[in-house]
């Protein structure tokens, strides 16, 4: 729909009713992954490698199988051979083959009549290892003499003579870098590093799987994408995806980490071996941290040139990111594409290396790659602003992208809202608050592409004139409410008269997961199309009754109306009246829509943070925090605000405290929340938000995805604020108290 057709004055869109799933969730009635149980169910446990890199010499399950209550053990030998590419890497990650590739890598699994017996049995499985040299640091892994993790991992892009752990090389750019830097008044370069962090979802991975000897199976699982679970588990197990029915549970957070599989094929494999008895498997927190996808760690160089008036003349980045032991997991491509997405710079260079390391296989984490890129680039922009005495928002406005600007990654932008977020941040009272001693203010902007993806939705009109909408995108952040609001708006019926169901794989065509900030955009767009089908049929039923042409009937305010005076004089026929008679007027009324929608407009955001740093301890207190982000149209403003605040909270944790800490032995030192320091309520201020609405022309209601952009600016915004407070520039994350204190002392 053209953007001119997007109008305001909605009845339901923009309101903030309670979420349909809210009561279930606060009363404990909602069923999460671990809440499913079946008669005759077994429980599974996993044997994991204690070594970062080791050849598996022998696995002996004799003692485990002799334990009363043990029903099955699976190892890699039970899985099919001959897989290639990502299917092979998924299988390797599910159960190690010849080598264990990181601390926590699964090597065997066992099913028993109770969880305790399964855990005891896992301890009785004897694994003989030949320990190999390991590497966990991204720069060390890139050295020519580093331990080789996956021989021959390099794809076509890697130049001859590269280090053996380099799996992929990317470069792109435009203009003339040398001329651009020569044109600048100041040219600076710096090195930045970030550590791996985990998505930190509160619900661990959990699944119940059942599979018979005939390969027919069912799975109940906590996931962002039931069709991906079906496809990936079937590939790993060599079974027919059409014979696996996957039902998603409610989900206690995902943030990208539940768009793939980790232990999920194991309950199915164990079930098949245990005569088809269902098997439940629930990860511990330590298993989640050791063996499910964190994001990548990064080593980044940035060079940038700026004129005295703030014009950026040229910029170059060199990013190195490790994504674990398998190719394709590091988000270095996305990081490069996001690096300068906020800026209109004529001369650009991007170079990136994906590197393998003895760490868990990375998964997507909220705007994958973009936060690291922003940390490096937005820190550098701030460094140049301070050196030249320029206001950071004015410099971003001067160089900021707008409609028609050629993006750093190639195409020209359509309608976007970066400038509007900068203007709103500048006008916000937070930007004018006077700061005291040891206090500082940081500003940063961020970007995410957003995504459409395969989508299938159906809508059925119920006999009482309400509507049932079936979608395939699990509800992580309130998408049931947003889709119900859009359905109510489209049909002209109350919000309460719409029920949105998240359905299993047998109920709809394929859906990609809830990822890429796509659920409200793509399922909402498909719902709108499906509703048009239902509306067309309802108009037809009214036309039949009135004995007029269906084209002479229009739909508004939840009823069929004659289109004009020439159509005849009839009282409007409401959805309730049409639905009550539908069995006698042609049968059930429904609509459906299947597509891979394009037009997912990108979202930009600008954050402003004030901090106070204790010069004695290096502790950073976040005094106030402002998120300004373009939502296109905020369907449910309270849940949009929640996404903004959630992104900021996770970004604050990443910036100040969170990190994967590996020992010299290559083992993860902090695999519990006591030591993996996520922010708690007392670490965070009230996070202020401003929802900018620059409608996306690619959506019937102007929606842009809002889930991911918010985690991008906090990393550099906090680094910039800490620099303003202390004079110390921290170019390494996390900026925890010891790091800040050391930087203050080094400054002198």
């Amino acid at each position, binding site marked *: 729909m053209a953007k001119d057709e997007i109008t305001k004055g909605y009845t339901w869109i923009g309101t903030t009713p309670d979420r349909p799933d809210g009561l279930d969730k606060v009363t404990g009635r909602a069923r999460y992954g671990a809440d499913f149980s079946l008669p005759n169910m077994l429980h599974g446990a996993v044997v994991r490698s204690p070594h970062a890199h080791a050849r598996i010499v022998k696995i002996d399950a004799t003692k485990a199988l002799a334990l009363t209550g043990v029903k099955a053990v699976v190892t890699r030998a039970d899985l099919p051979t001959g897989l290639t590419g990502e299917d092979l890497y998924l299988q390797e990650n599910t159960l190690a083959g010849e080598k264990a590739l990181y601390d926590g890598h699964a090597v065997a699994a066992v099913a028993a009549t109770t969880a305790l017996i399964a855990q005891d049995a896992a301890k009785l499985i004897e694994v003989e290892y030949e320990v190999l040299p390991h590497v966990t640091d991204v720069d060390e892994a890139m050295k020519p003499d580093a331990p080789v993790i996956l021989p021959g991992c390099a*794809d*076509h892009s890697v130049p001859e003579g590269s280090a053996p752990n380099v799996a992929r*090389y990317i470069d792109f750019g435009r203009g003339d870098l040398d001329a651009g830097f020569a044109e600048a008044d100041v040219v600076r370069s710096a090195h930045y590093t970030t550590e791996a962090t985990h998505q930190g979802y509160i619900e661990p991975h959990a699944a119940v799987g059942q599979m018979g000897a005939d390969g027919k199976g069912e799975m109940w699982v906590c996931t962002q994408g039931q069709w991906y679970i079906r496809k990936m588990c079937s590939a790993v197990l060599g079974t027919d995806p059409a014979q696996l029915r996957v039902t998603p549970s409610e989900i206690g957070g995902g943030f990208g980490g539940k768009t793939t599989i980790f232990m999920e094929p194991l309950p199915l494999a164990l079930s098949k071996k245990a005569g088809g008895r269902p098997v439940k498997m629930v990860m511990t927190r330590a298993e989640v941290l050791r063996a499910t996808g964190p994001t990548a760690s990064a080593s980044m160089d940035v060079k940038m040139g700026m004129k005295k008036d703030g014009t950026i003349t040229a910029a170059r980045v060199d990013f190195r990111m490790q994504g674990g032991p398998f190719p394709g997991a590091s988000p270095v491509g996305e990081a490069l594409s996001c690096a300068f997405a906020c800026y209109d710079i004529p001369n650009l260079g991007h170079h990136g290396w994906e590197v393998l390391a003895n760490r868990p296989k990375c998964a997507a984490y909220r705007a994958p790659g973009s936060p690291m890129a922003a940390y490096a680039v937005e820190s550098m922009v701030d460094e140049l602003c301070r050196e030249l005495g320029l206001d950071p928002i004015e410099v971003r406005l001067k160089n900021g992208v707008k409609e028609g600007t050629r993006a750093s990654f*190639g195409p020209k932008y*359509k309608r976007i809202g970066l400038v509007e977020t900068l203007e709103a941040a500048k006008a916000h009272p937070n930007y004018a608050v006077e700061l005291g001693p040891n206090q500082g203010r940081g500003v940063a902007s961020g970007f*995410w592409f957003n995504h459409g993806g395969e989508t299938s939705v159906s809508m059925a009109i119920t006999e009482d004139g309400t509507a049932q909408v079936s979608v395939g995108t699990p509800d992580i952040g309130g998408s049931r409410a947003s889709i119900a609001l859009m359905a109510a708006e489209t049909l002209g019926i109350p919000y309460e008269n719409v029920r949105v169901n998240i359905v299993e794989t047998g109920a709809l065509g394929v859906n990609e997961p809830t990822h890429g*900030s796509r659920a409200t955009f793509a399922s909402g767009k498909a719902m709108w199309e499906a509703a048009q089908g239902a509306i067309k049929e309802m108009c037809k039923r009214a036309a039949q009754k009135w004995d007029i042409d269906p084209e002479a009937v229009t739909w508004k305010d939840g009823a069929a109306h004659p289109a004009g005076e020439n159509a005849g004089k009839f009282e409007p026929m409401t959805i309730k009246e049409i639905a009550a008679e539908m069995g006698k007027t042609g049968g059930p009324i429904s609509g459906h829509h299947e597509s891979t929608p394009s037009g997912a407009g990108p979202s930009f955001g600008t954050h402003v943070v004030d901090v106070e740093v204790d010069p004695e301890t290096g502790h950073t207190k976040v005094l106030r925090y402002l998120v300004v982000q373009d939502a296109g149209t905020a369907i449910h403003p309270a849940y949009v605000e929640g996404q903004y605040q959630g992104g900021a909270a996770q970004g604050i944790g990443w910036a100040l405290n969170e990190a994967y800490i590996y020992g010299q032995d290559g083992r993860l030192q902090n695999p519990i929340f006591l030591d993996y320091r996520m922010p708690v309520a007392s670490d965070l201020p009230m996070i202020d938000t401003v929802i900018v609405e620059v409608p996306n022309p690619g959506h019937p209601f102007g929606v842009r995805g809002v889930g991911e952009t918010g985690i991008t600016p906090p990393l550099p915004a906090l680094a910039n604020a800490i620099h303003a407070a202390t004079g110390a520039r921290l170019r390494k994350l996390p900026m925890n108290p010891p790091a800040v204190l050391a930087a203050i002392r080094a400054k002198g």
Partner: protein
Amino acid sequence: MVEVNLWSGLRKFTDGAEVVEVEAKTVGQVLDALIEAHPGLGPVIEAGVSVAVDGEVVTGGRQMPVAPDSEVFLMQQIKGG
């Protein structure tokens, strides 16, 4: 003919050209024509790329129309969280 803009790392497969012309009316035809004219691009495209047509990223949309004057960019495949 449609002009397709490639990222610079792909130049080695196109005799140094960053912009190549192909005969195509859809995104799918653009990708097929690229592989036919420059077989070295085959593994890259088959591994997954995003295509932007007139500023719109159309991942997976092989049926999307492309006009002779469309601005077409081949991009790294983007995944989200």
